[in-house]
């Protein structure tokens, strides 16, 4: 229902178009330089791009989840997580609940994927699942659901394909120029003017080096805007920005890096998986706004609406230019915050309980059988175990498998 989707789409479309132009430039010079016709270069660039886009569109989510080694969970595997996702699905007005995946990794991170709201997935690391209480988890899931609802996921996937294509083409082109190109220029210099050849070579080399960098900067710009918007949406859905703020704080304090992330998938995560501890994220070269700033904005919000988020954002940045389109801000101006859920505290499992719960879940997903011996010891039976009984190593009782 929230209109920021359309207005942001236009802005993002311009940025994506910019990336497209860069890709075409690379193709153009590639064509002139290697194929003696720019048409050939353009076609080559388009074919590579189209191929990668098709793969990303139809299989991107599966590839991403497979790369992250994520495993799908159902309601019975982790009722609380499933319920929270469903709560956020209702709050955001999504029609279908996204698939839920868990990544077995102590790092604290989460991401959303899927080409449209009907085929979406959210993934969360087991580390994050252990660390966060219910309110914090709600904030994080709200952020991810917002990415799905605002259709950021497809946009990021498509622009990362554009970026990837540009980078790959430019990479090969520069290599070829340096090695193969020398031979070729000597051969052709006899027929055409050497000076013109040299200028084209210089322009091409500069472009090949600059294009990927510029594409990357545009990509980062798209990504950062989306992060702010998702934070604001999460606050709006949960009516409780403190939940996400405190989750981000916990994430900021952790030092472990996600093993299964790579540069291409980085913007999909809730925080940049490659951020280095103690290094403030710089403005232009980061996929995510600095965590401290995101936390500060969330904590300073007077209400839960976009208008409140916008106001604080402008204060923090000392700018009149906002991050959320005006059409969205008019909605729910008087949206008040809800109080902290004090009464939910006793229901909330404590930290050790959450760790136990999550490790149980990971064993179960690995097809291990868990048998609780009468002495209280938990026995994990691997899927290959063939015996009918197992002896408890702690008390010596024989337990049936």
């Amino acid at each position, binding site marked *: 229902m929230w209109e920021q989707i359309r207005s942001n789409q236009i802005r993002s479309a311009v940025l994506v178009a910019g990336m497209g132009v860069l890709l075409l430039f690379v193709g153009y010079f590639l064509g002139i330089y290697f194929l003696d016709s720019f048409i050939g270069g353009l076609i080559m660039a388009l074919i590579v791009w189209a191929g990668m886009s098709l793969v990303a569109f139809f299989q991107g989510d599966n590839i991403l989840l497979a790369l992250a080694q994520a495993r799908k969970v159902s309601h019975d595997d982790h009722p609380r997580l499933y*319920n929270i996702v*469903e709560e956020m699905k209702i709050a955001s007005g999504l029609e279908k609940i996204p698939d839920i995946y868990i990544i077995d990794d102590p790092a604290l991170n989460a991401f959303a994927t899927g080409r449209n709201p009907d085929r979406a997935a959210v993934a969360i690391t087991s580390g994050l699942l252990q660390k966060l209480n219910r309110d914090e988890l709600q904030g994080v899931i709200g952020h991810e659901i917002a990415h799905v609802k605002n259709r950021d996921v497809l946009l990021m996937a498509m622009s990362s394909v554009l970026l990837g294509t540009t980078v790959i083409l430019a990479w090969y082109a520069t290599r070829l120029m340096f090695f193969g190109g020398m031979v070729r220029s000597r051969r052709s210099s006899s027929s055409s003017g050497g000076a013109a050849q040299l200028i084209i070579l210089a322009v091409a080399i500069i472009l090949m080096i600059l294009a990927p960098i510029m594409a990357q900067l545009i990509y980062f710009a798209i990504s950062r805007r989306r992060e702010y918007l998702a934070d604001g949406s999460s606050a709006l859905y949960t009516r409780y920005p403190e939940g996400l703020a405190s989750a981000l704080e916990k994430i900021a304090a952790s030092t472990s890096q996600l093993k299964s992330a790579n540069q291409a998938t980085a913007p999909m995560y809730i925080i940049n998986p490659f951020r280095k501890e103690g290094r403030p994220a710089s403005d232009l070269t980061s996929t995510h706004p600095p965590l401290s700033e995101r936390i500060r904005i969330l904590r300073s919000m007077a209400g839960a609406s976009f208008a409140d988020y916008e106001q604080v954002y402008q204060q923090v940045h000392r700018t009149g230019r906002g991050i959320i389109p005006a059409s969205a801000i008019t909605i729910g101006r008087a949206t008040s915050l809800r109080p902290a859920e004090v009464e939910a505290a006793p229901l909330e499992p404590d930290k050790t309980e959450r760790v136990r719960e999550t490790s149980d879940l990971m064993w179960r997903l690995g097809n291990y059988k868990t048998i609780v011996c009468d002495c209280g010891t938990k026995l994990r039976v691997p899927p290959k175990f063939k015996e009918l009984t197992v002896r408890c190593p702690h008390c010596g009782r024989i337990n049936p498998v």
Partner: protein
Amino acid sequence: MIAVYVIIGIIAVLLILFIATYNSLVRWRNQVKNAWAQIDVQLKRRYDLIPNIIETVKGYMKHERETLEAVTKARNLAQQLASGGVGERGKAEGELSTALGRLLAVVERYPDLKANQNFLALQEELASTENKISFSRQYYNDSALKYNNQIQMFPSNLVAGVTGFKVGEFFEVTVAGEREAPKVSFT
């Protein structure tokens, strides 16, 4: 001749605008209806959960028959009124919430019960259902506000007036406030 074309052109543009506005109004109205249905789904889910909870709790709570009966009664009443008037129903749901709150407050006296895995699972479901009720209400109110604005603001109010979109349909929204379940306290 040119004047005729201009007039035809203006009429065509107005017609297109009219159709577009009408369609967007229909979309908003459907969204509001859909949001309303979501609240219903969650309230029904609560009816379904209560018998299970009572069943689990019964064995432990020998001395709380009145509390349990009050919950069951409130639930049955709310379910009966589910197809009735919004106001009546809101009241019944409110009573059910109060009765549930009382039951879950009593649970504190039974440590055995709080160690029961089955009960803990049901408690999570109930707490989440209460959250879902309030989130679906929240979404409904946001949608309703938006729809309300569309109907009352120029120029879409012209289209709404001609084609009979009624704000009246909406005043149910404020009544719906009564359906809000108070937060269940587990302390």
